[in-house]
């Protein structure tokens, strides 16, 4: 959908496939979205203006035990719960794949019964865009330890 708005001398478009609203203007001074005092005004846009709608933000989240949120910038936050196997290890598939880069993965104990056990680490060599591997490094592995994982990337 595109709307030519003569007042701003530009084009209002929702054609962007990511669901963000694009506004392009030929006007050199300003875009006014709403005439009321509460509206925002952008002056002298140097490039096409992108606004992430609430629909887009809500459509890129899943607030569950294993979930994610994609921010309008593209930054992805993900979290997961996992229980270790008898060897104290666990493979974790992210709720969604990272399209570009994984910035950080963390894992911490979630259950009080495993408090004090510090024998697990994220194996950096196993990091892929879709998976990572938690490995016991204590030599005294805990079976069925509940681990809370958090990953960030884009």
């Amino acid at each position, binding site marked *: 959908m595109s709307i030519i708005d003569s007042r701003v001398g530009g084009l209002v478009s929702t054609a962007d496939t990511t669901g963000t609203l694009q506004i392009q203007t030929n006007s050199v001074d300003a875009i006014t979205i709403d005439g009321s005092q509460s509206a925002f005004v952008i002056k002298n846009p140097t490039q096409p203006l992108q606004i992430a709608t609430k629909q887009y933000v809500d459509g890129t989240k899943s607030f569950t*035990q294993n979930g994610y949120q994609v921010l309008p910038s593209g930054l992805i936050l993900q979290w997961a719960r996992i229980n270790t196997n008898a060897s104290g290890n666990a493979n974790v*598939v*992210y709720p969604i*794949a990272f399209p570009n880069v994984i910035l950080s993965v963390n894992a911490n104990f979630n259950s009080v019964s495993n408090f004090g056990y510090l024998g697990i680490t994220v194996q950096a060599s196993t990091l892929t865009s879709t*998976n990572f591997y938690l490995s016991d490094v204590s030599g005294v592995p805990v079976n069925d330890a509940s681990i809370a994982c958090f990953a960030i990337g884009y």
Partner: protein
Amino acid sequence: MKYYSQTTNGFYIPEIHTTMPNDVVEITDEQWQSLLDNQSNGTPITPETVNALKGVA
């Protein structure tokens, strides 16, 4: 709607993954959530467990 790839053993969403592996198959949000919940409870996500959930031999 989500997509699953056996090759990468990962999940994809069309909102952000403009390119996906060639072998992706559609899975429902409910199936995706079940796989993650099962992973939390000790059943790893593998091509076999995904196919079993989808009812594919």
